[in-house]
């Protein structure tokens, strides 16, 4: 029997549409230039620069203590981890050994930051696929972490808690108690996340097999973080190049091999469990000691080039400093995870529907100030 053939005389016309910079799904001021044929996406071109603040140039002007404060404003959802990257780079350059207490506290707050970033992502992920309720569930749990941060260092989002040489001040006496409270609370709430979204058949239909990224492409595009790990590329900096107290804890690197949006989703959910486990291992064993080592009031790095990478909630953040021996860096470069993760958007969304683009973009988890810097 002859199969029916579609009459190709029917000509469809590709058209151009502007998604953003003001659009609910672009999470800030990202502008996507879409070429679509009906609902099917033919081309996605991200247009960057709407929130460019030339942070790298500003770094050349500032002292190393001041640079830490600028990094808050890059990936504002992992501000503490960004701060830590600069501090570690400066400390390594100065060959400064920070106290164990500092390392443990930094790692605990890192993981809290990661959980807070992932809960926000989870809420927004639900919202992008149309389940508005998840947003509030995510924010409920994130709020508890923000309260802990507020008590610890006075800020909720842009923390500035790290300084080269240690921490700005010691942790609040309530810190351990409140973190334990949060962990107990969060362990009961995380299964709720699965009930609300993960197991939902509509959600699975929306994400499974959508935005598939192969391991080779993940490496070729320089993807990192949950995006790369969803494709089976083991790239967790915490595992491969442990920093701070991460060499003292045992945790599994969340890896999935499917490479679709659902795999990236599962990686992040699993990472939240791993972060909980890391915090549980450390929270009872915060060593006594100083919360910082004294540094010179004006830090001058020896002449040379320094690189430090850390694992933020979005992937690998690299800090590259070229010093000529002065009090400012000669050149500073941040390798932000968001930019390289965004670069593969066109590759994995072409051929999908508009709904797929939104669902895929949610699992890439972009933070626009991190991309633009």
């Amino acid at each position, binding site marked *: 029997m002859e199969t029916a053939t579609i009459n190709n005389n029917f000509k469809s016309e590709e*058209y151009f549409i502007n998604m953003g910079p003001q659009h609910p*799904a672009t999470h800030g001021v990202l502008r996507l230039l879409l070429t679509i044929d009906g609902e099917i996406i033919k081309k996605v071109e991200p247009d960057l620069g709407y929130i460019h603040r030339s942070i790298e140039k500003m770094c050349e002007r500032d002292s190393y203590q001041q640079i830490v404060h600028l990094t808050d404003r890059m990936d504002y959802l992992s501000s503490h981890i960004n701060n830590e990257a600069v501090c570690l780079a400066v400390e390594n350059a100065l060959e400064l050994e920070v106290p164990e207490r500092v390392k443990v506290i930094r790692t605990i707050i890192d993981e809290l930051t990661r959980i807070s970033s992932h809960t926000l992502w989870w809420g927004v992920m639900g919202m992008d696929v*149309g*389940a*508005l*309720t998840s947003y*509030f569930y995510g924010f409920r749990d994130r709020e508890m972490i923000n309260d802990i941060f507020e008590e610890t260092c006075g800020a909720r989002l842009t923390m500035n808690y790290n300084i080269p040489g240690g921490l700005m001040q010691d942790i609040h006496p309530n810190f351990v108690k409140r973190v334990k409270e949060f962990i107990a609370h969060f362990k009961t709430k995380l299964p709720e996340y699965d009930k*609300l979204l993960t197991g939902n058949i*509509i959600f699975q239909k929306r994400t499974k097999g959508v935005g598939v990224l192969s391991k080779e492409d993940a490496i070729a595009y320089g993807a990192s973080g949950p995006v790369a790990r969803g494709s089976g590329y083991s790239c967790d900096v915490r595992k491969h190049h442990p920093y701070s107290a991460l060499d003292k804890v045992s945790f599994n690197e969340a890896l999935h091999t499917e490479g679709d949006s659902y795999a990236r989703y599962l990686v992040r959910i699993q990472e939240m469990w791993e972060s909980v486990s890391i915090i549980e291992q450390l929270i009872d064993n915060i060593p006594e000691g100083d919360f910082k080592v004294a540094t010179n009031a004006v830090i001058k790095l020896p002449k040379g080039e320094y690189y430090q990478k850390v694992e933020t909630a979005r992937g690998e953040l690299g800090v590259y400093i070229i010093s000529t021996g002065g009090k400012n860096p000669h050149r500073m470069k941040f390798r932000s995870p968001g930019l390289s993760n965004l670069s593969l958007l066109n590759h994995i969304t072409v051929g999908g529907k508009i*709904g797929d683009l939104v669902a895929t973009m949610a699992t890439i988890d972009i933070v626009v100030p991190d991309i633009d810097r």
Partner: protein
Amino acid sequence: MYSSLIITNNIHSWVLSLMPAAVTGITEMMMIAMIYLTVFAVLGLFLVLMERKVAAWFQLRIGPNRVGFFGMFQTIADALKLLSKELTGTDKADKFLYNLAPYFLIISSLMALAVFPFSENLQAFDINIGIFFLIAISSIGVIGVLLGGWSSNNKFALIGAMRSGVQTISYELSVGLSLLTMILLTGSLQLSEIIEVQKSGWLIVQGHIPAVIAFMIYMISGTAETNRAPFDMVEAESELGAGFHTEYSGMKFAYFFLAEFINMFIIAAIGTTVFFGGWLSPFGITESIPWLGVFWFLLKAFALVFLMMWFRWTFPRLRVDQLLTLEWKYLLPINLFNIVLMAIIVWLNFTIQF
């Protein structure tokens, strides 16, 4: 004994005493129209408040609680705000169609509201093709959506409108066929007669298995008909901004908004009338007090409205191709099979009747 018929008869004789008999007809029609407009507005305001409260309870929030007790006047305040808003429009929009579009929606939902038996004898028109009329009228609304999206001169609105067209036309079939399944039981399209039949058991009980299947299909496709989540392709705020009403502001936007909520009530009201006995009380417990019919009708309708809100605040949105797959590959074949099943059950007299 107290029946709504007494009130209507009294009003009729009062109107007759005031004016010549020739104009009483028109006067009474105007009175009924005014009553329905009021009911329409109040219902819309209440449904918006209900949606916001239900959403808040689902989302660990309190919801509106500032304006009036329990936030009662929040939607009135919102409506006043929308009234005072400037009506903006896009350049190069098709002005005539652009301004016409909201009225299609609002008129279709107002007309559909007119045929419901809110209680015994409390019905504006008891036409003998009631269900048919409802299905026909409720599909006029999509013209408004299509026109609105088309004439806005906005690509997002256009995508929303096209999605709406494809969605509503598809799900229209399921709504019609699932109601047709129930018509096999009643043998009449007239709404008052459909309720009369249910005095010996609600249709969902009378028709048991096929009726339950029909009800599920009806609720799914009814939700899709009203363009609400998980079928809110038309608006899909994370994809299309605000979809077909992106370019509407002020009261024109409010018309779309109000019509969406009234349509939700209409779907729930049809469901109540056809599946759950309309104004009949469960097990006839208040049969001696007919005016409680309004209470039972609204109670059942709002229970179904709550069900639809529950859908909205828990489910993610389907993708547009999945939406059509669901309708054409699953709901429609099941529906056709279900009609045959119901026909067999009616033919063999396997219905449950008290």
